[in-house]
């Protein structure tokens, strides 16, 4: 079974078809996906900006990052759930879209960046928790995260134009 026929099968399931043909569900899910950007990427931005040394500099990095993390995860959970449903009802179009493929690759890169940060320089955060401007490695992680998410948003928005 090729990936394309798998996508065809996914969007032909009952859920996929009824979502695609519904008047209200699709706009509601899509609208939620867009507005939840504020809770996911919006909150992530605050911790990234702290890592870059641009915001709440007088507060420990761990305070700024750890306290916002659970809320940020709620935001990303909403993004993933609504995103899966959006894919579900238009899987073939998504499969054929270069922007969708790019978006998925960038999502993986963003995840790798986050894991590398947590397992790398953040392990030694005790040494730079109160630094006004965190060390280079942390600043790069913050910049990379913001740039990647801007690119992910761009791909997501652009793929919808080509559908």
């Amino acid at each position, binding site marked *: 079974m090729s990936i394309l026929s798998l996508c065809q099968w996914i969007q032909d399931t009952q859920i996929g078809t009824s979502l695609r043909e519904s008047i209200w569900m699709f706009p509601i899910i899509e609208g939620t996906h867009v507005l939840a950007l504020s809770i996911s990427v*919006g909150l992530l931005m605050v911790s990234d900006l702290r890592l870059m040394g641009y915001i709440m500099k007088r507060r420990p990095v761990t305070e700024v990052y750890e306290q916002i993390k659970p809320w940020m995860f709620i935001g990303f959970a909403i993004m993933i759930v609504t995103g899966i449903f959006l894919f579900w009802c238009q899987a073939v179009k998504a499969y054929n879209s270069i922007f969708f493929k790019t978006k998925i690759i960038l999502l993986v890169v963003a995840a790798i960046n986050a894991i590398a940060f947590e397992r790398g320089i953040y392990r030694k955060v005790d040494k730079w928790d109160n630094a006004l401007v965190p060390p280079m490695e942390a600043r790069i992680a913050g910049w990379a995260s913001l740039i990647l998410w801007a690119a992910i948003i761009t791909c997501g928005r652009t793929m919808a134009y080509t559908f």
Partner: protein
Amino acid sequence: MLSLVPFFQWCDSSFIGAAIRNSRVAFPIIENFHLFALTVLLGSLVVLALRQFGLVYRAQPISEVAGALRPWNRWSLVVMLASGILLFLSEAMKCYSNTSFRVKMLFLFAALLFQFTIYNRVVAREDKVAHAGGKIAAAIALCLWFGVGLAGRAIGFLG
């Protein structure tokens, strides 16, 4: 009765509006910046509201959190309005007959009015513990701004 139609027609036929309409990439690029600004604007409001509800950053006074977020809030609003005006110019007549657009403008004026007359002053005065009034103000601000976003998204879907 005074009609707004001539104004919308003038916007629609403006040089900038026509230039955006005639370009294949201008509209998507501008809308993308509109979306970036939405993320930053609503994000900063959510963080401040979370602080007011006592859910994050309790060690920082509310006014301090508001101060740290202010430039991001302010500049994202500037980008939001600038990109929004450009998008509007390119399809002003479409917007005129669009109910969601009218609802969005009502929410936008209410949100701007509330933020600059009440909300900004309330948070500037709050210290460690938010007053009930502050929490209510945070909830109103969130509802108004998310209302703007929701109605904005509906422009394309519902008409």
